[in-house]
């Protein structure tokens, strides 16, 4: 860990290490002792992170929003009939429209609209019964038409929310539920891929991906650190995979996440934000965000300013670096897409009498057929099988991974010894054993230092391989210690 930190420090001007040291001295309300090795920022129970500035100065509140692009799982592209497939030979899945041949016109893919509606409903969004398509113009080799068709004015879904759970500390003994607001979901085209061949001063363009359907999800800046963002994205992944609207595998580019990060003092307006791109995994997402928060805090602490810029995350160095910005702010010259009429969706009330669900998209019909979402499945697991909530998370991920293997959750739980330890006597014995083995800690507790109890609880958890209920363990230990 130290070696990594040193490397990071060397590569990014020592900011990383300095930030951590500064944080360790801050006693602030509600914050926990900074454990060496992991996070630079910790979120307190109220949900807002409180990080240190120079001692004596006001604290900083980090603000994190996310812009997520999820590739829609469909047979063909958003506006053309060519196939969607990962890792096909270059330029083998390109229709005339995808290549922007003159005279071709977009035709909307029904399945993509359904995927967006399902996702919107699963995220508690309001589905706009009328949404519009626009052109966003810029020149780039992987954008054949010179514009992307997107939904800038009126997207398909707005004002939703995503609930996710977070462990307060590393020991998974306390979970808290948080919510992030979903600003909107919009349908848009993916671009092709560019491979820069610097040795030959050329760029190779593969248009297989050009025109594939994307859902862009905007998460409001309700998060405060990398861990929250990572947890939110993990939950989103599970939801998308459950719905089948996207396979959401980051490694295959089916889920791309950009983070918007800023910091400000409490009571003051939000600070200037930077956009962080080039994040290839959820782990790097958390790292990139936490690094950027610290970078901004240090910059502002030194009297500098934050530029409203786009920064790339360098995973090797563990830091963010400014992206080359040649022309200043881009003006995308948005214009309505004249070849696509407004997208009209219906519900049971507005559906005209002579139309059936095959001719149009009926939001209510889709809603009725939504599968159980992960949060619902987890609740059922806890209720039915008495496992710990934390384990229901793991289980669900396992279930997703092992889909189709035919094991029931109960079988899986038993197989991996995940069920709660029900035998009270056994638990008592373990508690006693821990007490007997930690003389110093027992003395400290009896002397009045209640916090050390947590260490004992942790040891019991370790001995039971996490299968004990921490609340119960605490009760047992306290009972024994007072005897």
């Amino acid at each position: 860990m130290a070696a990594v930190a040193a490397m990071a420090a060397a590569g990014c001007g020592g900011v990383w290490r300095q930030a951590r040291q500064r944080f360790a001295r801050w006693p602030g309300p509600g914050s926990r002792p900074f454990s060496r090795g992991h996070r630079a920022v910790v979120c307190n129970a109220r949900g807002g992170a409180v990080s240190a500035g120079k001692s004596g100065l006001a604290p900083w509140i980090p603000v994190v929003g996310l812009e997520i692009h999820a590739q829609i799982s469909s047979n063909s592209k958003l506006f053309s009939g060519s196939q969607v497939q990962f890792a096909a030979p270059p330029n083998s899945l390109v229709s005339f429209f995808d290549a922007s041949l003159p005279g071709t016109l977009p035709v909307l893919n029904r399945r993509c609209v359904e995927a967006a509606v399902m996702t919107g409903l699963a995220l508690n969004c309001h589905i706009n019964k009328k949404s519009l398509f626009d052109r966003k113009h810029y020149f780039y080799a992987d954008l054949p038409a010179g514009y992307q068709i997107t939904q800038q004015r009126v997207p398909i879904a707005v004002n939703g929310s995503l609930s996710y759970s977070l462990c307060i500390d590393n020991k998974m003994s306390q979970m808290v539920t948080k919510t992030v607001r979903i600003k909107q979901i919009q349908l848009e085209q993916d671009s092709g891929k560019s491979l820069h061949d610097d040795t030959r001063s050329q760029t190779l363009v593969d248009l297989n991906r050009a025109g594939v359907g994307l859902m862009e999800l905007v998460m409001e800046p309700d998060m405060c650190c990398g861990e929250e963002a990572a947890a939110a994205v993990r939950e989103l992944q599970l939801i998308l995979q459950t719905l089948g609207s996207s396979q959401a595998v980051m490694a295959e580019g089916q889920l791309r996440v950009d983070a918007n990060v800023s910091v400000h003092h409490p009571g003051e307006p939000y600070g200037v934000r930077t956009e962080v791109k080039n994040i290839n995994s959820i782990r790097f997402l958390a790292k990139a965000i936490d690094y950027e928060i610290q970078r901004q805090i240090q910059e502002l602490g030194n009297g500098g300013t934050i530029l409203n810029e786009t920064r790339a995350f360098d995973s090797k160095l563990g830091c963010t670096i400014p992206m080359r910005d040649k022309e200043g702010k881009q003006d995308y010259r948005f214009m309505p897409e004249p070849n696509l009429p407004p997208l009209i969706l219906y519900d049971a009330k507005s559906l005209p009498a002579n139309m059936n669900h095959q001719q149009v998209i009926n939001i209510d019909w889709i809603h009725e057929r939504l599968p159980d979402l992960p949060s619902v499945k987890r609740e059922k697991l806890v209720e039915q099988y008495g496992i710990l909530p934390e384990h229901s998370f793991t289980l669900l991920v396992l279930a997703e991974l092992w889909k189709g293997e035919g094991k029931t959750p109960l079988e899986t739980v038993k197989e991996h010894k995940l069920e709660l330890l029900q035998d009270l006597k056994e638990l008592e014995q373990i508690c006693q054993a821990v007490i007997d083995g930690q003389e110093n800690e027992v003395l400290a507790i009896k002397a009045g230092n209640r916090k050390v109890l947590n260490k004992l609880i942790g040891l019991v958890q370790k001995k039971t391989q996490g299968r004990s209920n921490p609340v119960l363990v605490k009760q047992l230990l306290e009972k024994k210690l007072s005897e």
Partner: protein
Amino acid sequence: AALKDALRSQVSAALKEGRVTPTELCQRCLALIKSTKFLNAYITVTEETALKQAEESEERYKRGQPLGILDGIPIAVKDNFNTAGIETTCASNMLKGYISPYNATVVQKLLDQGAVLLGKTNLDEFAMGSGSTDGVFGPVRNPWSYSKQYKEKSIPKSHSEDKEPDWVISGGSSGGSAAAVSSFTCFAALGSDTGGSTRNPAAHCGVVGLKPTYGLISRHGLIPLVNSMDVPGILTRCVDDAAVLLGSLAGHDPKDSTTIQDDFKPFELPNLTDVSKLSIGIPKEYHAPGLSSEILAFWSKAADLFKNAGAKVVEVSLPHTRYSIVCYHVLCTAEVASNMARFDGLEYGHRSDVKDSTESMYAATRREGFNDVVRGRILSGNYFLLKQNYEKYFVKAQKVRRLIASDFGKVFRSGVDILLTPTTLSDAAPYTEFIQEDNRTRSAQDDILTQAANMAGLPAINVPTALSERGLPVGLQFIGRSFQEKQLLTVAKWFEKQVQFPVIQLEEVKRHDSGVFQQQKSASFS
């Protein structure tokens, strides 16, 4: 059968009865194209494939199984429609040598019905212009420049056979198609109409030019100028033929999301005799500045014609007409800027040799590939789409567009069936005079009478009316209600019958036509 014969009434019958074969028809057209090469109406002549198609048609006629009325009929297509395996240039360096890999829907429909494609016709580059003078293959000459009627009236500048000095423009941007139909090299041609590009050259070349309702005919494969206004246009020698073409082209296309879903039923035009139930509107704003006294007189005579026949003729007002030019300018250039963004030299078309960077390659390609007119519109359009200008210009223009469209709505709801207006401000100008002003100025002047119909998406048709003092065609325009082409064409047909527009007397055609050269009586108009 003569090449001058009307498709529906005569040629089709002749083909069916074997009085003429598709191959003969095709060969005669191809020969006439060759001898009228100086008109520069065609960019590409597809001699081989045309003859092959004619042969196949002949086989079908022999078996007694023609595909329909269009089987074996030679047609021409404006060079901004995609034609599979055939060069499609839009009269631009950007697409010189570009071979389309697919057929536009309208082209496919014609081929499916056995039509014989003679070639691709000339136009203003990317359909931007009102003279067909600004394409890279040179200007189109109006066949009437070489007509007996024009030569008789014009002051001879020289005694030689020199064809250069006084020829007049064909109008634009579908000038090649209009000239091709006018000079009898084909029986019908496809044009496009965005601000009048089918009706304007139709008026100057003395042919019927139909702009259908937006959404009736598929634009799939038509290289767009302004997606929200473009329509495929139909050019023929008589209104009945236009109805035939319309019947074979109209209808929903799943490849074009802006076509209406409703079923389209092809129709035959009734021979209207009683116009007493008709209400003709005369919009006063179409008495535009620059309208020649000659055309004003023809317009007035036409109104009287209807009145005397018992129709109700009323003056109406379309108050926002005067804003249509600037409104059109903003919306047109904005869409052009967007539509032309795809021409970057990467995937197809012209690519510059400049290789320093991608950006420099783009810039050089577009500078080399586009003419001034196209580049000017792209720059204007991008300006109007800038974030700081969008509300002020683009959104404002959209609002004005709605006002222009609702002007028509109000008039039609007040009981008026059809509007009668001039199509152009004057007869065709000599080329040397026309090019004194730049493309933008000319377009702004010439589009005034035709562009409002594009803004409102309404159907409109030019019907050749009479010859001017100079012996050149003058046409009048009828504008109808959305999707009421049948009513529009019925009235147009009645009018056509009344005016008896004279047949062009071209030496070249005389030589090629083995049939009797029929002198048609001119109407009392000329």
